[in-house]
């Protein structure tokens, strides 16, 4: 599948790798007992350990370790039973220790894979390089005072999972699909809430371009993108910038850049020093982390069904389209809703009603599935009425709209409004005869070869019946009558 970008002098291939930082869902921080919750007053969720007071020491939170393992299992990755925490040394106001505890050479999770689904339903496997645990940093505010910065350490020490992909993506769309899928998996597993606005999930994008078939070009890193839109914008901008730069005879510098959300432009971070020399070494306040295969197996056994597995099941067992299956399984709540709604009903039809009508209505009203008045059983009921011929699909749309507003049951609405479909052949014949009689000229034209007029007759019959005539039967009988 070619996703090449046309430059002035020829085509270019885009190479993208992502480093996603996902805040671990846990009550306490990675190495301290302070709360990891969001939204506290400044420096309230800060322990003496987080503030790096003299003599403070780290103690690891087992749940954070398990969350990382669960995520690794969800990414079908190798779990490294022994891993090591290293110190990444640098100076910054939001880094009280003067080093971040991270994992450098021996991360807790190794190689894995993540399957992305594109808009056209095609799938691609994107390689995962590794996942490691590390401490988050605090927050600096630079706009509170003309010459001072204010530091809040609440976020310092919260557990992060850094998930590094292989440079397997070839377009901004693929990158967005990757992040969506990753977010979906994290939310299914409950290991990260994936809230990008709040900063629970952020991405650094590595972008380079090359002539098709050539070696990898020099890549740049654009940091801290916290929405799918910004990720795509930043990639598009970088690609265009790099292509133009190279075609003009220049070369791409390996550097770190920041994305300006207001202007859609990436720019170089002012370099703090020649190069960051982090002087990684194993943290001597910690010992190597060892988990047993038994612990890993127990975690694996307790995992919920993952989106890909549910998706495969929906496609293989229920015959859903790749697209519908992906949309339905993006969130665990949606998948659960679908299972309940489609139980005992036409699985494909229910899927169609969810993805088109239900999601359409929810989007318009800005609601979420959880607050929707239509329960899964109610939706199933509506679809059931279509399947058993009680109402037509056309009428069902009106019934749906009413259900969405009022929360009333489909059967009740049909009953109240007398919307039952007319499937009596005699009644339909009579309607058809009436229409034919009133439009003899058109009948002649149709019989003379204007096939398109068939639709006109169908429309007239449906109008006469107030929309309640069984469309299938109308078609059948009308055809027979017109064709003679």
């Amino acid at each position: 599948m070619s996703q090449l970008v046309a430059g002035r002098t020829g085509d270019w291939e885009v190479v993208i790798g992502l480093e996603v930082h996902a805040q671990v869902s846990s009550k306490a921080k990675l190495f301290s007992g302070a709360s990891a919750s969001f939204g506290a007053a400044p420096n309230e969720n800060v322990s003496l350990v987080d503030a790096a007071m003299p003599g403070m020491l780290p103690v690891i939170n087992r749940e954070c370790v398990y969350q990382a393992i669960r995520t690794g299992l969800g990414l079908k990755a190798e779990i490294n039973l022994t891993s090591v925490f290293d110190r990444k040394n640098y100076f910054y106001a939001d880094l009280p220790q003067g080093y971040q505890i991270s994992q450098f050479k021996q991360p807790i999770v190794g190689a894995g894979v993540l399957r992305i689904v594109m808009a056209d339903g095609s799938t691609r496997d994107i390689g995962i390089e590794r996942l490691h645990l590390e401490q988050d940093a605090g927050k600096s505010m630079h706009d509170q005072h003309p010459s001072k910065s204010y530091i809040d350490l609440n976020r310092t020490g919260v557990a992060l999972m850094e998930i590094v992909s292989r440079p397997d993506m070839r377009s901004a769309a693929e990158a967005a699909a990757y992040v969506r899928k990753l977010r979906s998996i994290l939310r299914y597993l409950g290991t990260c809430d994936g809230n990008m606005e709040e900063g629970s999930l952020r991405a650094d994008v590595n972008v380079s371009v090359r002539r098709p078939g050539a070696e990898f070009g020099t890549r740049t890193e654009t940091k801290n993108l916290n929405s799918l839109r910004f990720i795509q914008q930043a990639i598009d901008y970088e690609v265009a910038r790099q292509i133009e730069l190279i075609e003009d005879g220049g070369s791409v510098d390996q550097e770190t850049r920041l994305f300006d959300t207001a202007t859609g432009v990436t720019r170089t971070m002012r370099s703090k020093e020649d190069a960051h020399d982090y002087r990684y070494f194993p943290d001597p306040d910690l010992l190597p982390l060892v988990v047993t295969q038994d612990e890993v197996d127990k975690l694996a056994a307790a995992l919920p069904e993952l989106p890909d597995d549910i998706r495969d099941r929906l496609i293989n067992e229920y015959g859903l389209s790749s697209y519908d299956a992906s949309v339905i399984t993006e969130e665990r709540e949606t998948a659960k809703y679908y299972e309940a709604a489609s139980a005992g009903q036409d699985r494909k039809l229910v899927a169609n009603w969810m993805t088109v009508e239900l999601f359409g209505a929810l989007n318009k009203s800005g609601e979420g599935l959880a607050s929707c008045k239509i329960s899964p059983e109610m939706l199933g009921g509506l679809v059931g009425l279509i399947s058993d011929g009680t109402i037509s699909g056309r009428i069902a749309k009106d019934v749906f709209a009413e259900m969405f507003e009022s929360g009333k049951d489909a059967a009740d609405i049909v009953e109240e409004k007398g919307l039952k479909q007319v499937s009596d052949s005699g009644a339909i014949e009579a309607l058809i005869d009436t229409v034919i009689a009133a439009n003899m000229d058109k009948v002649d034209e149709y019989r003379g070869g204007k096939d398109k007029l068939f639709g006109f007759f169908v429309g007239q019959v449906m109008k006469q019946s107030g929309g309640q005539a069984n469309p299938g039967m109308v078609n059948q009988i009308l055809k027979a009558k017109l064709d003679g």
Partner: protein
Amino acid sequence: MISHQLNFFYNSKKHSDMSVDKSTVAKIARLARLNVPEHRLEPVASELNGILDWIAELNEVPTDNVEPLASVTGHALPMREDVVTDGDCVDAVLANVPEGASGFFVVPKVVE
């Protein structure tokens, strides 16, 4: 006095190549956020080289199949329960702060 007695131990051969020069000293000082004034760069380089020459003695030791020692304790990393047991002590955290404001730490402005 001491140097006589301990010369048997301290092999004061100096390598002809200086491993650290003024610019390296300046770089290391920068990494460590230490101000080494210009006139001290040369003496510090010389001092460091003396030390580095000495510790380079370790190159004599064959260590091809020897794993680095991770820890002397012999026990595995203990893990704690996911319970909030700490924090909520802003006063203690800010008790010794050179400059603070409304619960924040305050520093000279950082330009990104």
